């Protein structure tokens, strides 16, 4: 047979197949955020390479070695390269490298010097005569532009070797780095309206190494895998240090304002995570199989603490309770799944599971220096850290009943019990039922319909429990509160959730298909409370695909989504106790996000261009891709008579992309491709538009505008096909 394969179809084939392309593109104008997708955002020309090659041994060689390479945008800012090499049936190595930039803003402005570093300074002639931005007399002349961006580089190696007919070993390694300049916010002060802040172009210098090792036994009746996975994060910067740009505030300590005041923020500490994993399955009978997953893990970090404050002028009498946190979270997970087909028409899947996040981090009292601005707190005012733990138990049963090969009913039930500590609610229990129907009764129509209802109930919601537990014992009365007593946090609150899904595919002709999908979700929370009261999602998608010939296809889709959240609250001042009980200070917000997306894709191959009597010797493939996406955010506010209210402007984003391409085949192996891409992006956001660095009195902003760009990208590629 092998000989037959070689003789019949294999001898003429080149063991190396695929394509290599060399391209040159030109961008008509600077378009900063366009680079996120395209890998180029500066006006001018840029070359790049692309590869897609694979090697298979000749069928009659008896060899099993193979390799596969895929590379895209090699030479641009968004390259990705993948290599797989191995011997089929015995071992393989995969290498995956990619660079992922994120260009956020190129028009941010700041007076700070040292963008992207851990230490900032103000210009030597910086003037700040008051505790607001109005007192920064030479702000405008000190502002300069900074780019906010990041680039992730990821290299992953994955080696798998078959150790015998039933054994396999897998080893993987990955290194990720993230570098760039990001937005941080530096606040000074913390109480009674004395906070001042400025946005910082902070550093990004992350590095993560992760590695895994697993051994698998792949028997006929029993299979299992044992493995270890470790991940190690390190941050190149331990903290950020910046000078206070505001003049002294009367409530701040001496020497906190400009020119002497300094501030320091801790950046993300180095950390580690380890996991031991075991999974297995066992065939109990021909139609029943048991699956098991068990994971034990630990997350830890023990970076040395920064001092309470960097301002030596402030009084600090009590030492830190610990040199470092010695934080440790033990995680565990156990899942059992029984899959069975007791009757030819019935499929059953039962799961029970348990997961646990057991935070063993020690608790201590921290006598803070708030916002590097006031003397250290007294012991009675210290804060206790809260090491959150959580345990979750789950059980579910899914069943499918086949009335026929074309019609089946699905039903399911699930139960989740979650226990938390240091939380307003200690236990939540959620029951869910699901019913679905799938039908292909008609040859040309496939239908799927499902409905799901979930009901979450909780034990008593004690809103001030975290408040009490973070303060020194005896310092907070049982009636005191931080959040309003009528607040119910949505992720801890009782909730009724309903979901409806409908999906239909219609194939009126063999070349034509039409699809529609509708989804409706609604979450209801208890009435009479503040917080999220109701959320609703409505989504509709329609698509059409037409393929009149093998070398001609058209497809299009339209999608419309609406997300709506209704929430409420009461505005109250701690200095006016009656506020908390005054319904005239109630407010409601209804935020609705509308999305609309349209896409079109057309491909026509093997065209034979001709003009009069002239006919091209090669054929042409043409394609057209259009995408339009827009969102509109409406935020409607209502307020009681004691509050001031005014309508908010709408938010908006709009993306239009059009790509036209033509490939001319010079020969069977080589071709030229010309592509023109035009992309327009616009957004409007009241938080940025017409907001200058000093628009706010107490926060010095970057003053950048909402992103918008227009980009025209023209490229010419030569491709050789092996």
């Amino acid at each position: 047979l092998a000989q037959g394969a070689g003789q019949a179809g294999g001898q003429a084939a080149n063991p190396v197949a695929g394509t290599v392309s060399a391209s040159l593109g030109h961008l008509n104008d600077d378009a900063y955020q366009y680079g996120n997708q395209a890998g180029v955002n500066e006006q001018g020309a840029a070359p790049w390479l692309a590869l897609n090659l694979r090697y298979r041994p000749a069928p009659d060689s008896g060899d099993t070695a193979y390799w596969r390479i895929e590379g895209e945008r090699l030479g641009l800012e968004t390259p990705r390269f993948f290599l797989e090499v191995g011997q089929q049936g015995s071992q393989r190595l995969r290498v995956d490298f990619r660079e992922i930039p994120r260009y956020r803003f190129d028009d941010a402005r700041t007076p700070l010097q040292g963008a992207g570093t851990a230490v900032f300074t103000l210009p030597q002639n910086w003037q700040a005569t008051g505790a607001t931005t109005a007192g920064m007399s030479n702000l405008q002349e000190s502002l300069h532009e900074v780019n906010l961006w990041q680039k992730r580089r990821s290299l992953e190696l994955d080696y798998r070797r078959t150790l015998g007919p039933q054994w396999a070993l897998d080893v993987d390694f990955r290194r990720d780095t993230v570098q760039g300049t990001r937005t941080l916010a530096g606040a000074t002060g913390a109480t009674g309206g004395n906070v001042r802040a400025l946005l910082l172009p902070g550093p990004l210098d992350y590095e993560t190494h992760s590695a895994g090792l697993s051994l698998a036994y792949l028997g006929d009746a029993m299979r299992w895998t044992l493995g270890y996975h470790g991940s190690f994060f390190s941050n190149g910067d331990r903290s950020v240090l910046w000078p206070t740009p505001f003049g002294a505030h009367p409530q701040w300590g001496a020497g906190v304002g400009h020119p002497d005041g300094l501030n320091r923020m801790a950046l993300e500490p180095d950390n580690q995570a380890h996991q031991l994993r075991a999974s297995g399955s066992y065939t109990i009978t021909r139609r029943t199989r048991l699956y098991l997953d068990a994971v034990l893990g630990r997350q830890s970090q023990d970076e040395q603490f920064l001092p309470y404050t960097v301002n030596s002028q402030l009084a600090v009498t009590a030492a830190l309770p610990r040199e470092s946190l010695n934080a440790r979270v033990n995680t565990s997970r156990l899942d059992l799944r029984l899959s069975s087909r007791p009757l030819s028409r019935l499929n059953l899947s039962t799961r029970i599971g348990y997961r646990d996040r057991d935070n063993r981090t020690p608790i201590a009292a921290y006598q803070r220096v708030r916002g590097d601005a006031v003397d250290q707190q007294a012991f009675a005012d210290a804060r206790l850290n809260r090491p959150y733990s959580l345990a979750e138990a789950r059980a579910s049963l899914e069943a499918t009943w086949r009335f026929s090969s074309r019609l089946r009913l699905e039903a399911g039930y699930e139960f989740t019990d979650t226990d938390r500590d240091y939380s307003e609610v200690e236990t939540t229990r959620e029951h869910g039922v699901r019913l679905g129907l799938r039908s292909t009764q008609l040859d040309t129509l496939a239908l799927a319909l499902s409905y799901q209802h979930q009901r979450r109930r909780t034990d008593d919601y004690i809103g001030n429990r975290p408040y009490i537990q973070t303060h020194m014992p005896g310092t907070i009365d049982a009636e005191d509160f931080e959040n309003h007593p009528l607040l119910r946090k949505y992720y801890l609150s009782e909730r009724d959730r309903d979901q409806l899904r409908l999906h239909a595919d219609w194939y009126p002709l063999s070349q034509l298909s039409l699809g529609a999908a509708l989804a409706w979700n609604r979450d209801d929370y208890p009435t009479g409370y503040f917080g999220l009261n109701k959320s609703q999602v409505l989504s509709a998608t329609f698509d059409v695909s037409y393929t009149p010939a093998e070398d001609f296809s058209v497809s299009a889709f339209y999608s419309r989504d609406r997300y709506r959240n209704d929430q409420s609250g009461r505005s109250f001042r701690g200095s006016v106790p009656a506020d908390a009980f005054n319904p005239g200070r109630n407010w409601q917000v209804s935020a609705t996000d509308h999305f609309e997306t349209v896409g079109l894709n057309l491909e026509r191959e093997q065209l034979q261009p001709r003009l009069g009597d002239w006919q091209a010797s090669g054929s042409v493939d043409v394609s057209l891709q259009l995408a339009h996406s827009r969102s509109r955010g409406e935020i409607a506010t209502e307020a009681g008579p004691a509050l001031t209210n005014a309508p908010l402007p709408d938010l908006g984003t709009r993306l239009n992309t059009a790509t036209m391409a033509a490939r001319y085949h010079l020969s069977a192996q080589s071709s030229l491709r010309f592509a023109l891409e035009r992309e327009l992006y616009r957004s409007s956001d009241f938080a940025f538009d017409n907001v200058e660095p000093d628009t706010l009195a107490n926060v010095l902003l970057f003053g950048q505008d909402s992103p918008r760009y227009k980009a025209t990208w023209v490229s010419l590629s030569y491709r050789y096909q092996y």
Partner: protein
Amino acid sequence: LLILAGVSAAWAQADYVDDDPRMCLVCHGPGTPLAADDIMHGAHGVVGNADSPFATGQLGCQSCHGPSSEHLGMVDGVRPLPGVVFDQRQPAAERDAVCLSCHEDETGHYWVGSAHEFADLSCTGCHTLHPLADAMLSFQQVNEQCTDCHQRQRAEILQASSHPLRSGQMTCTDCHAPHGGPGPAELTAFTLNEQCLDCHTEKRGPFLWEHAPVAEDCSSCHTPHGSPHRGLMAARTPFLCQQCHLAAFHPSNLESGAGVPPQGASNNILGRDCTSCHTQVHGSNHPSGSGLTR
């Protein structure tokens, strides 16, 4: 050695074509209208691998297509199908049994009971075997393949804030296991947070001052595929924050147009609103950072 041994007891009795693949290639060889010979030049044609369908002792095309001698003739003017055809005419479970007889190790532990298996999506619903290249193995094409069905996600990744899926720098399979995974939504990690923290390791902590929903569930605030709000936030801040924070003074303020120029200028709604001060919203390790400002 027979790949299909055990797939169907009936097949053992059935009639195989002797001269496979030569006989098959008479109609399905190079240049024929129903050419299928490319499969011999792809992964399935590596005959040095004893498990290959075309290796010595295997059954060639019938290794997957089953006993097909009837397919050589005509019955009432119609050519009977091969033993197994990989389209809607054959139940998905029967088609998949053929693939799984060799590839169960690779599909892994979670296929049975997975979303795709439960929805009767067969292997060949995503994978193409006869052409030399399978789109599911190409990082440039896999997203297109997934969003062909997951159309809501196709629309979401065009939103202003999204993971870099449009360009193929990230693929759906970076987070989701199409053959089934241990986590919710067939994630490759055991929990949603583990999945997110696999890349966003800096947010793993544990921090001295944790933000409770961060430690529990990233999706309390973020949505994974696309959002019009920065940072893939599920809703607009400060309103998202105010769904859980309603303390005296600024956390409970009504933020409205009265705080937007030209009517006013509120610290809590312009710029980065809450995170203009509370920048360490994922957790702080500063001993004075309990308010997540340090």
